[in-house]
């Protein structure tokens, strides 16, 4: 049986992880291929 604290940890990792990883991945791709808006 899953423990409540482990569930909270899984939730937090999912909630922050999925958008966070996608954000960083997009940043890397954007810089690598010089696409999208830039501040320069």
């Amino acid at each position, binding site marked *: 049986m899953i423990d*409540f604290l482990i569930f909270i940890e899984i939730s937090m990792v*999912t909630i922050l992880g999925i958008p966070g990883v996608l954000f960083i991945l997009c940043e890397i791709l954007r810089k690598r291929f010089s696409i999208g808006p830039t501040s320069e």
Partner: protein
Amino acid sequence: MINQNQINSKKVINAWCSYDIANSAYNLSISTVLFPIYYEQVTKDAFGSELIQFLGYSIRNTVLYEYAIATGYLIIIFLTLTLSGIADLGGFRKRFMQGFTFLGAFSCMGLAGFHGLNIGLGIMLPLIAVIGFAGSLVYYNSFLPMIATPDMHDRISAKGFSFGYAGSTLLLIFNMITVSYYQFFGFNDELQAIRFSFVLVGFWWLGISQIAFHFLKEKSGKIDMNRYVWLKGIREILNVFKHIRKNKTQYRFLLSFFFFSMGVQTIIIIASLFGSVELKIGPTKLIMTILIIQLVAIFGASVFGTVSSKYGNKTSLIWMLSIWIFVCIAAFFIINEYQFYVLGALVGLVMGGIQSQARSTWSMLIPKGNNDTASFFSFYDSTEKLAITIGMLGFGSIEHLTGSMRVSALLLSLFFIISLIIISFTNLKKQLVE
């Protein structure tokens, strides 16, 4: 513990429905219309361009907002899953409902303190407000079996929905008047009028909810406290999923629903932001467009209800999906506000229709005569929330990469095309006859 005096009491039912008036105002006025417009304007003014600084990254303001909304919906999924089990514990419902309402309403009022540079506040407060919104809804729904017998549930749910629809539309009209005639109300500009609306909606939410809190009585009884009570919602979802996996029609329909929800819900959230960013349409005209969409949606739902009864649910869904595909592709090309209004009217035509048709089709597909109906519907709602999360993440990441919402709109058309293909290969008639 159920108070027998409140079962099927007209006064209590009306009080319960009134809560929908209270919190729907947040969903329509703030989430859908005012906050996206305000956020886009103030961040652009504060940072001097659409690129803002966040945690050391230079990111487009709208992209950050889209990621934040997706994160908010992820929180809602986990929250709803755990709270639905806890909601069944006697004696806690009203307290929790009040707690989430306060959390949501005060966060909504707090939005008035967001001025652009304090971007952390501008991202966190809508997230907290949305937690208050979704959390209070779980307890609001859990009150239904306590105030009415099962034969009344559908009617009361529909009544609550129509209360919420009418109330939120009325408040949006009032907000539109304050924003349009801001000078008459003593405001310096439209943004100040919008800030006032944040506070007003917060008070509306807090004030009207007191009617429900006054009439909904709950005796605190013996609490069946179980260490794993919070797992109930997750167990329910897993059981329903096992059942659906075995039924080809249900599985395909739900998959199709999942794909078109990614598009439909994302468009609802993003429509005003799209008009503001891509077409530079002002707040008043954007609020007006959303109002038109709301009103056309009633007409659209009845039109496609007729199509459905004449040609069947599948045909009706295929027609609506085709219109959605057209809307998304056209969004890539539109250049002026009039084209945006036409697209808005088209969205209105299919927005109400597709949501009500999908819900009624699902209710026809699920097994009759057992107690699992609620579980099947909570699975359906979770599917929709997951679809919003993925839809928003997809929309946000494409905009992040390309710097254009128009390309993201094309991605949404892809979701609708996939949904159309799946529904074309789904034999709804067979399941409905069975």
